[in-house]
């Protein structure tokens, strides 16, 4: 028997809370989680009491047993956490949920992420304490302590090796902000970005300008995973999972920036597995959601998922190629982590489903294959591909 997730599960519902600038959510993080679960169940047209599993990532604080208690769930069958990797776990959590549903461990698993950076601390700040030990002792005292600072080092090396210019990073930022202007959910709705505004923005850490960096937000997002056989019992056009993978390459987790293959989004081993499982190639992908912690990670992910060669970045990564509906590779069509909301990337998975359904605020025509890349440059990373019924 072939072992694959391909076509075994479907996404019956998606939902999110309103998205807020960090510190501005009126509700506690745990309530935000509940609200996202309720929204996703309403979207699917099911009672939240039918949910029998939860999967999340990045040590989400909203404990599945407490969620099940709060929701009055009768039979919790699956409670799963994708280990490590921060936002690199988004599609990994979906893969785990899919594995549970595909194998009969559970029938209806909610993948979720709730994050109130305003309530629990910002990702973009360094540790304030007298002493530090472990891996951090070898970086923090040198002023290398934030995600932007950790990843700029990789991106700088990649740009050096392949002659990538700043304009390629800028194009990715412009595309996200462009799409956000049509998306009322987006935190940056009504706040367009121009080339001049990008160029004039301050450096955070070279090669990242302010607009190369993700937002810090409060909110929650959720999606309902069900067996493919029942996909047509729900309210919307079915979205099937064609593939979902996670992982990392040889010694990606070597500490103090010692991964032998360093200047990478970490997808070199994952991307071939994803395409193999999904039985599609990069040329089949109609629309891409590609996690922007920082634009440089998007750039390397696009290369490592086979959309362009490393030495073609300057030509391929221009705004007209990246915007819906007519770009060669419409990317981050909700505004993504840069301009819709940084819900640790799960918003990208929801947007990918909306593209399959034809419900995006920046809809690409005739989408059959819709792809998500989660959390580049960390370890483990993950990515997934959704398809319409026609792709099965």
């Amino acid at each position, binding site marked *: 028997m072939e072992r694959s997730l391909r076509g075994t599960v479907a996404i019956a519902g998606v939902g999110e809370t309103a998205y807020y600038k960090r510190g501005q959510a009126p509700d506690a993080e745990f309530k935000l989680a509940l609200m996202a679960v309720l929204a996703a169940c309403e979207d699917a047209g099911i009672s939240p009491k039918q949910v029998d599993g939860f999967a999340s990532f990045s040590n989400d604080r909203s404990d599945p047993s407490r969620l099940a208690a709060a929701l009055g769930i009768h039979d919790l069958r699956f409670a799963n956490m994708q280990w490590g990797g921060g936002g690199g776990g988004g599609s990994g959590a979906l893969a785990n949920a899919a594995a549970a549903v595909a194998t009969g461990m559970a029938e209806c698993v909610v993948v979720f992420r709730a994050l109130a950076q305003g309530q629990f601390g910002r990702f*973009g*700040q*360094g*540790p*304030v*304490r*007298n*002493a*530090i*030990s*472990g*891996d*951090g*002792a*070898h*970086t*923090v*005292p*040198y*002023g*290398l*302590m*934030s995600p*932007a*600072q950790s990843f*700029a*080092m*990789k991106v*700088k*090396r990649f740009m*050096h090796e392949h002659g990538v210019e700043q304009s390629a990073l800028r194009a990715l930022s412009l595309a996200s902000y462009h799409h956000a202007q049509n998306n009322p959910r987006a935190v940056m709705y009504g706040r367009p970005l121009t080339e001049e505004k990008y160029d004039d923005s*301050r*450096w*955070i*850490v*070279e*090669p990242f300008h302010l607009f190369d960096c993700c937002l810090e937000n409060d909110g929650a997002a959720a999606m309902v995973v069900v067996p493919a056989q029942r996909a047509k019992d729900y309210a919307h056009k079915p979205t099937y999972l064609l593939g979902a993978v996670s992982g990392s390459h040889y*010694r990606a987790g*070597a*500490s*103090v*920036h*010692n991964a*032998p293959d*360093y*200047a990478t989004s970490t997808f070199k081993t994952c991307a071939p597995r994803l395409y193999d499982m999904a039985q599609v190639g990069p040329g089949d992908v109609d629309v891409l959601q590609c996690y922007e912690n920082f634009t440089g990670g998007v750039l390397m992910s696009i290369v490592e998922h086979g959309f362009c060669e490393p030495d073609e970045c300057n030509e391929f990564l221009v705004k007209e190629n990246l915007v819906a509906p007519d770009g060669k590779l419409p990317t981050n069509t909700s505004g993504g982590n840069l301009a819709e909301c940084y819900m640790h990337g799960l918003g990208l998975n929801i947007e990918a489903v909306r593209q399959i359904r034809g419900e995006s605020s920046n809809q690409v025509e005739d989408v059959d294959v819709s792809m998500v890349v989660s959390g580049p440059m960390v370890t483990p990373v993950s990515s997934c591909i959704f398809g319409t019924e026609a792709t099965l």
Partner: protein
Amino acid sequence: MSGGGTGYLHSGLPKPVPAPDGLDAPFWEGVAEGKLKLQRCRACGRWQWGPEWICHNCHSDDLVFEEVPPVGRIYSFERVWHPVHPALKNQGPYIVVLVEFPEHDQARIVGNLLGDPHQDVVIGDEVHAVFEHHQDEDPAFTLVQWQVA
């Protein structure tokens, strides 16, 4: 030197101390004496950094910290502008370098590049270590900084 202390960066950042389990203690003992020591496997000869409890190549636990010449090459770098820690609020830009030791199985360590924070930095340039001692801090510590040869 920038103001606010005797180091490249203003004082007030977290001070490095050996891991509670002792994994990297010989490294910190070495730099306090002005010696750069990285981990090497006595069974297969492989260098590795950061430190591990066993050799990633042959899985022996017969590991030692061995001194390496304090000379490396810039593998990557970044100029930081936005302060993410209160101690760096008035620091201005500073340069972090990732220094590689090509003769030691491409082990890399992180440091600052001394000199003008606006200087042009060239990947591949040879750099020499400068041991930056902070004896008056509590706890005392030593950082390994770098200077273009």
